[in-house]
């Protein structure tokens, strides 16, 4: 079996980066940082004292006799074990309610800019079966072909593709490197020979089918939903009116679990609003509304007051905050599962990218929680060969994990789901390999970059704790294919296959109302109309906007695309109320 090398290895040999393994901030104890713990040198003494106290408290709480700390393990939720001071403090407060106060006042460490670990690199999968030589040869040919394309040598690339096609007839393309190589050869062929812009094909409806099968065939989307829901649930604690904004409703698969969890909340459920964003339906159907109706039905059955609004938009940057109708006093959660990367542009292209304005208006909503789940991959590199290499190894690992699921799955349905799930991934591969500039949507970036971006926009991190971790781990035990692993990385969770993380979840907040809160930029359209903060459900009369939103509980007329906004291709849809 073959190694799991890093994509970056392809171009790393010339320069040996001789850097200190941990690039911690000067005040942090460097040796502990190397061990994965972030402690200020100046705090060491206090942390030591607290550790002693914690031990005493643990011994004391066990009441003598045999020692049992299980309640600390099972009942307490642990957050970000790297921040040792906070961890010790939180354990202490579990055991000793009358506690004189934490080591440091600020619960979260300042800034995500401390890079404790080296620039995250990955050990990545490339499947090697008995045909190891053919496999190596295929990879070599793929690289050479990609490099030829990067140099503009179409002829060489074409002939290499021919050679690969020949080789593919001789290897087993049912699994392993043969299968993955097949998809990449297909993508390279399209890039070379397609006359039209090889944009992602297929309708939204087709995409939803693919998505659904990917959801079934692997734990990645389920992990995304579980983890995000857990964070949202915790953030909504103590709030009676909550509003979830889903950046990509799809079939609304994420929400039944949240609705049910809210229904079971001690003290009773809040009233829940869900705003689902999705593409407009071309055929006159209103798919967003249909999903809203289904969710409303479920909410009714578990006695959760529920209201749904659909916002049809082809692109997230067509959405304007006023469409979301965030009401004052409600706790807002923004949920983005694999959507934000579509708003990125080439890293070296000048000017602002759509992501900046979108993150800015999300921040302006003052959300209690923003859940971000993204592919853990560096697929937004400007150089084609770099990108190609990263993608080859990322999707090799992905396909490997799907295969293990298929090999162990018994039902024919599972087999079919896997096959269609591969087509879902193929779309991504084609996009990454074939598309350039504004045509490319799958601009995946690594967690560390998302963290930096969120931090720069002014979001504060919310640590995903051991509850979410445990849920995710237990989810995995339901899946055969024992190579999946969940990892905690400084407050975020990743799900991966055989030590390679493939998907990363993080959570953020922007709900502190400081005086120096970030002002809304002037070039935002919504600032010229009455801001959402002045609306509430009972008097919402924004006639000057041509909005026909009169939410007094009844079904509303659909708003036509109004023309007072120039580049607005989205439309408001009706509110659907449950209960």
């Amino acid at each position: 079996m073959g190694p799991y090398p890093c994509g970056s290895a392809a171009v790393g040999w010339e320069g040996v980066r001789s850097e200190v393994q941990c690039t911690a901030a000067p005040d942090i104890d460097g040796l502990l940082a190397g061990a994965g713990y972030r402690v200020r040198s100046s705090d060491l003494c206090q942390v030591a004292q607290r550790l002693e106290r914690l031990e005493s408290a643990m011994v004391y709480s066990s009441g003598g006799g045999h020692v049992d700390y299980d309640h600390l393990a099972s009942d307490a939720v642990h957050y970000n074990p790297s921040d040792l001071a906070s961890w010790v403090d939180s354990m202490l407060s579990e055991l000793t309610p009358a506690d004189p106060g934490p080591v440091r006042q600020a619960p979260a460490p300042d800034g995500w800019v401390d890079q404790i670990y080296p620039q995250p690199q990955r050990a990545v999968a490339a499947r090697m079966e008995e045909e190891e030589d053919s496999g190596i040869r295929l990879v070599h040919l793929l690289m050479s072909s990609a490099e030829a394309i990067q140099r503009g040598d179409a002829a060489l690339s074409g002939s290499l593709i021919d050679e690969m096609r020949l080789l593919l007839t001789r290897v087993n393309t049912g699994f392993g490197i043969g299968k993955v190589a097949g998809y990449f050869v297909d993508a390279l062929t399209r890039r070379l020979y397609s006359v039209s812009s090889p944009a992602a094909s297929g309708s939204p409806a087709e995409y939803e089918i693919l998505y659904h099968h990917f959801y079934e065939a692997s734990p990645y989307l389920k992990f995304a939903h579980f983890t995000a829901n857990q964070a949202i649930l915790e953030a909504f604690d103590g709030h009676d009116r909550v509003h979830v904004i889903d950046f990509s409703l799809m079939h609304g698969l994420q929400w039944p679990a949240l609705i049910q969890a809210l229904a079971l909340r001690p003290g009773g459920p809040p009233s829940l609003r869900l705003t689902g964003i999705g593409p407009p339906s071309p055929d006159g159907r209103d798919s967003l509304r249909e999903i809203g109706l289904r969710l409303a039905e479920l909410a009714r059955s578990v006695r959760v007051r529920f209201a749904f609004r659909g916002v049809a938009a082809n692109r997230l940057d067509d959405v304007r905050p006023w469409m979301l109708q965030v009401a004052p006093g409600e706790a807002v959660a923004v949920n983005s599962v694999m959507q934000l990367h579509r708003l990125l542009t080439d890293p070296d292209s000048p000017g602002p990218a759509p992501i900046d304005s979108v993150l800015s208006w999300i921040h302006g909503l003052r959300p209690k929680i923003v859940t971000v789940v993204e592919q853990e991959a560096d697929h937004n590199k400007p150089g084609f060969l770099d990108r190609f290499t990263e993608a080859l190894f990322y999707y090799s690992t992905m396909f490997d994990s799907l295969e293990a699921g298929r090999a162990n799955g018994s039902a024919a349905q599972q087999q079919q789901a896997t096959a269609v799930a591969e087509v879902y991934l193929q779309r991504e591969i084609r996009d990454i390999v074939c598309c350039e500039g504004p045509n490319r949507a799958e601009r995946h970036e690594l967690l560390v970059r998302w963290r930096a971006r969120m931090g720069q926009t002014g979001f504060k991190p919310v640590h995903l704790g051991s509850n979410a971790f445990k849920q995710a781990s237990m989810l995995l035990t339901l899946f055969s294919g024992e190579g999946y692993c969940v990892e905690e990385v400084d407050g975020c969770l990743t799900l991966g296959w055989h030590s390679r993380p493939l998907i990363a979840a993080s959570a953020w907040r922007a709900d502190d109302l400081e005086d120096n809160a970030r002002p809304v930029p002037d070039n935002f359209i919504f600032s010229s109309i009455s801001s959402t903060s002045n609306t509430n459900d009972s008097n919402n009369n924004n006639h000057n906007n041509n909005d026909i939103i009169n939410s007094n509980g009844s079904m509303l007329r659909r708003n036509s695309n109004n023309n007072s906004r120039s580049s607005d291709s989205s439309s408001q849809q009706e509110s659907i109320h449950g209960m």
Partner: protein
Amino acid sequence: MAGSNEVNANESKMAVPLNTWVLISNFKLAYNMLRRPDGTFNRHLAEFLDRKVQANATPVNGVLSFDQLIDRSTNLLVRIYRPTPIPDTEDPQTSPSPATSSIFSSLISCPSPDPFPVIIFFHGGSFAHSSANTAIYDSLCRRFVTLCNAVVVSVNYRRSPEYRYPCAYDDGFTALKWACAQPWLHSGKDSKLRVFLSGDSSGGNIAHHVAVQAIESGITISGNILLNPMFGGQARTESEERLDGKYFVTLQDRDWYWKAFLPEGADRDHPASNPFGPNGIDLRGLPYPKSLVVIAGLDLIQDWQLAFVEGLKKADQDVKLVYREQATIGFYLLPNTDHFHEVMEEIKCFVSSNC
């Protein structure tokens, strides 16, 4: 009084630097939470709390790492650490541009035309904790690469209580056989695998048992390096009673880990824990590898470790004992004491003279 649960940190605090004390105390308390009295283990929380690092095929300080799945049936992963590869300009498969040279041929290329050691490393954790990608062990393995100009193979063996004896040993032996089958790990004119088995705590125990199995399979091991190896027995020894609870470790936790690892119903005189005890085997006349055994003078199980060294000597085996009187467990995790640096030198000499 020894054996009590009184917390008296003063002795341990004076024995180690403050950051080491914080590190090991944190492990101790976290581990206390994970062990349940009924013998089960809170694996989810253990994985959550464990600080891990990714493999990194871009060289950092001259060392790169990558993971490899060597046995699909048991999901056995190893993390391989090696010096920066020398670009091979003579390989016909390699095109002039380094960017397109086959990834694998670079990573799995021979580090050097001269003989080099391959160190198979088994991380510690009392058979239940840690992984090959745990940060503290990643650091240690990287250090071994530079120290000994070696390729280090860190084995992510199956842990107890989910997987008891002999799973860890089987995984260790699988890794050894795998190494034997890798052409790029063979070096020198005679194209030999110059393999060392090493480990700390439970890893040291595994190294010993894999070495025994290697003898039975005719595989030659150049040397064993055992750091605070984990051994035990049914009796209570003087060091156990004297040091119980004083330096991060208690007899109670040792008992728990043995119970979790050994077969149900076995006691600590099982040969796994007590290889030279009543159920041990006789190694006399067998080609057991040369051993370097490092024992910390403040480790409560040292009497068992010393008995192990005695056992090897009685069997006429070549063993060098390095006894660090003032060292505690885990002294090799942070490079902030003489113990650390002097033991690293011993390891370096041992490897180079036996390679």
